[in-house]
């Protein structure tokens, strides 16, 4: 138990110490060489800027998070539904999978202007962009997972004349959970990227704009510390969402799946 606690402390403490050390070196070097803050700001400049502008920044973060989470939720629902349809028949999968790949390989930055034009409501357009980016890992992982069923168990279900729905809900979905969660972990980061990239392209302004707009504005005004502060906020939001997904995965799988075994020890 004691070594367990020590390991947990290390898990949080070690990266934290590295971060702190890097910030110190950064601060010292910038001060020593008197680097102007409009070229490369010191950590203290960034935190000052954050202190001044936190109200705007958090409002922008709220917008970005709303778009990210809506896009992610839509991607979950659509992606899992598509995967369920794919596993119903090989023909359907063969016919449609290439188009799912199309989603993945088309650069989102190239498509998003079109989406912004097609979807009138800007927030709606950004959610669509975020959904498209987040969709593919969920489709491909869920499809793989729904197919990765223990053939013996499948035989047992069939010998018992289980219905398709019973096989899906009692066998395929539980077997697929580790794969689905792996897909969701990738997708939540992609949904954030989609939300930010979409906003760069859409270039929304004024009230209700997200963090990408703050970065653009700060760039135009050469307010580099503010740009860094907005960037930092995006990163922290991404890490936080990823962590939440990790915790959810652990809650769902820790009692049975090998991937979470170490976490339990």
């Amino acid at each position, binding site marked *: 138990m004691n070594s367990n606690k020590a390991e947990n402390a290390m898990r949080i403490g070690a990266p934290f110490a590295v971060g702190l050390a890097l910030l110190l070196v950064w601060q010292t070097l910038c001060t020593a060489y008197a680097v102007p803050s409009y070229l490369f700001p010191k950590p203290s400049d960034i935190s000052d800027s954050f202190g001044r502008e936190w109200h705007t920044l958090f409002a922008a973060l709220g917008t970005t998070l709303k778009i990210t989470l809506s896009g992610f939720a839509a991607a979950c629902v659509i992606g899992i539904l598509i995967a369920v349809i794919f596993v119903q028949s090989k023909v359907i999968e063969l016919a449609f999978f290439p188009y799912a790949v199309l989603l993945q390989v088309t650069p989102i930055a190239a498509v998003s202007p079109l989406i912004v034009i097609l979807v009138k409501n800007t927030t709606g357009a950004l959610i669509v962009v975020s959904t498209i980016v987040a969709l593919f890992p969920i489709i491909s992982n869920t499809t793989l997972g729904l197919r990765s069923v223990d053939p*013996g168990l499948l*035989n*047992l279900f*069939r010998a018992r004349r289980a219905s398709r729905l019973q096989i899906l809900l009692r066998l395929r979905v*539980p077997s697929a959970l580790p794969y689905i969660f792996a897909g969701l972990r990738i997708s939540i980061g992609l949904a954030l990227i989609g939300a930010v990239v979409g906003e760069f392209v859409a270039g929304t302004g004024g009230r209700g704009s997200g963090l990408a707009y703050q970065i653009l504005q700060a760039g135009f005004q050469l307010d580099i510390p503010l740009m860094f502060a907005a960037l930092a906020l995006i990163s922290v939001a991404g890490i936080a969402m990823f962590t939440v997904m990790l915790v959810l995965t652990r809650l769902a799988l820790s009692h049975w799946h090998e991937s979470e075994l170490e976490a339990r020890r």
Partner: protein
Amino acid sequence: MTPAPLTFDEPEAKAAARLQPAPVIEVLSAEKVFADGTRALQPVDLTLRAGDFMTLIGPSGCGKSTLLGMMSNLLQPSEGRLSWWRGGPEKIGAKGRQIGIVFQDPTLMPWATVESNVRLLFDLDRVPASESMPRVRDALARVGLSKFAKHYPRQLSGGMRMRVAIARALATDPDVLLMDEPFGALDEFTRHKLDADILDMWQERSLTAVFVTHSIYEAVFLSTRIVVMAASPGRIIHEIIVDEPFPRDESFRVSTRFANLCADVLNALSLAQKPNHGAS
């Protein structure tokens, strides 16, 4: 040399003692050719009678698992047919006769507790928990795993997982128990223990059992009938009756009769190993 006949005239005394049990599963000239052209099984005739403990033994590729698969109605014969209780596959099912199946692997759902795993077949038949739970508890008690009802499969040893699989098959109170090399992956001690347990359950529930195995010793210890099979193409070449009374215990394992029977099975198997046995 012509293949040995598939049916045997049993000793009269034994036939009388059995009171001519009714056929449970009849394999009628059933053969299996897979889609890729592999001939897994030549036409086979075999009658499983109530109360039999029949072992299918043979080298890899002799079609013993295929034969068991057809008997469990998981595989359809390419030619010929099977009958269950003198009827079609509709005789088996939730409302009809029960066939319990135990596979090579425990095939448990890793995300479900031992209890839920044993309850699975009831759940698939939409039997309410109030009705199924007492039977699940009985089955778990029978295999000695009552204390582990709330455990997950990963927390159990290989032998215990196999016991869960047996409990799952027994919980529905089957008329026939079909087992496909269930203890192949277990160590010798665990295997002996489970062999003895299976025999006890077979006796106390008047089960009819078919048991696929690689092990001659296991076949002789368990069976009333040993069906010896040969590979490429898969076929039945011999049948040996084990006329040893039950209950059998460890003293049977070390007896001369046991050794002689093992030698008989071994002889039958090695005859089958000879290539072109028709020409020699």
